[in-house]
């Protein structure tokens, strides 16, 4: 679950070695960016957030504990910052809201709800992203960690500090909501 998830790597990080920090950024930047993008639904915001995540990691690097997994910590920080950013954006009534209609770069599902419509790959992705954007945060984070990042139940439970049972309930609900949101896309 870590790039060089051994105690030695964390010790190097804590010692403030620049090379170790570079490795950390290079090893995790795509995961952090991808998760941020899927959570926020905005390319520019995700880019800025990924940068802030690593700056925050650098600032708090001395508090890293060897015992806790590095990736667990990075995912947790990323999600926390995503939620905080989303709240700010909502309060600013700018760019992103919980509703898909106001998310730039996404497609209004109502337009795409025509049954049996053949969607282009990009359009399909945009509609899925719009459905993700519409999810409540609690369900969204579970869904993204499981179905986008491919983490195990145990890892997700650790990151979100929730019981596995709660995690399964949230995941099931998230998938059902997403399925309903994509009713016009999924033809069964």
């Amino acid at each position, binding site marked *: 679950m870590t790039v060089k998830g051994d105690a030695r790597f964390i010790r190097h990080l804590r010692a403030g070695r620049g090379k170790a920090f*570079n490795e950390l*950024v*290079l090893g995790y*930047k*795509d995961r*952090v*960016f*991808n998760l941020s*993008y*899927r959570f926020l639904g905005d390319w520019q915001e995700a*880019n800025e957030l*990924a*940068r802030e995540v*690593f*700056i925050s990691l*650098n600032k708090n690097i001395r508090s890293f504990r060897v015992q806790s997994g590095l990736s667990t910590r990075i995912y947790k920080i990323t999600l926390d910052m995503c939620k905080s950013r989303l709240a700010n954006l909502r309060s600013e009534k700018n760019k992103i809201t919980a509703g898909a209609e106001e998310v730039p770069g996404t497609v209004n599902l109502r337009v795409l709800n025509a049954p049996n419509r053949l969607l282009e790959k990009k359009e*399909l*992705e945009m509609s*899925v*992203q719009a459905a993700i954007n519409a999810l409540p945060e609690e369900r969204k984070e579970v*869904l993204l960690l*499981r*179905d*986008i990042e*491919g983490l195990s*139940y145990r890892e997700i439970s650790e990151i979100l500090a929730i019981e596995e049972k709660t995690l*399964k*309930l949230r*995941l*099931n609900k998230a*998938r*059902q909501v*997403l*399925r309903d949101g*994509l009713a016009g*896309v*999924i033809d*069964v």
Partner: protein
Amino acid sequence: MSDKCEALTGLLPGYIDGELPAEESARVEAHAASCEICRKELERLNITVELLRNLPRYQASTRLLAEVRNEIKKRRTIFDRARPFLKLAGVLALAALAFFFLKNGIPPAGQPVTTQKIPGPSKNGIKRPALKKDKENKGISASLPTGWQVVEKEAAGLPSAGGSSYRIAETQVFQNAYEGETFAASAGNDLKNRVIGEEGEWKAFYASVFPKKSVPQVDFSGKLVVAVYGSGALSIISAEPFEEKLFISYRDTVKNGTTSAYCCLKVVEKTGLEIIFKQERK
């Protein structure tokens, strides 16, 4: 949707993720085969999950690392920049402290030492005494930094401060408060600075100065009385050991002319050190 369908709903995430035990997976499959609603539900969920898992994974900007580095550099505070130097200073300070204690010994644990900064060196050439390590003079002051002196006597049980700069009004022996104060010396006295180390000598001296007063008690087994003569503006400043000698520093602000008809007394610890009287001048 039947009760059976409801019961299976909770198993769906585990089934889709392939994390159900074989027995439960078989239950889900058997039910889905016989229940069209659940089969379709399962199919839709499977497609949903497939859609999610097949979403393209994007890569962060190739400039991200450089941007992070630049931003960290920009946001560094003065404290962050000084951190390596502060660390070095801390290490050096610790090393200096360790060296000091190794050289001078560690003060007894649990015994508070009251210290007071003594003013800097006088202008007449006498440097502030630096305490030397001396087997017989291992007192509280021996473990204090140069320039710091014990000014109050510690609790019983501590080693003798060995002539450290006790307050002039240290003891109660001079109930008449003559210690540290200047008084007119008797014409019959030998007006030379002196050290009185015996009870007989003390009684004789005191009686010659204050014939009508009772002689204050002084424990000459551990103490001495020093007497300094000068003008009416006379005062004893300190008694401090320095290079195997005990310096009695006193000040007499009136220059020449006036007779040495006044005396000032001070009780000091008996240290065995040679006593030197030194007049400080402003």
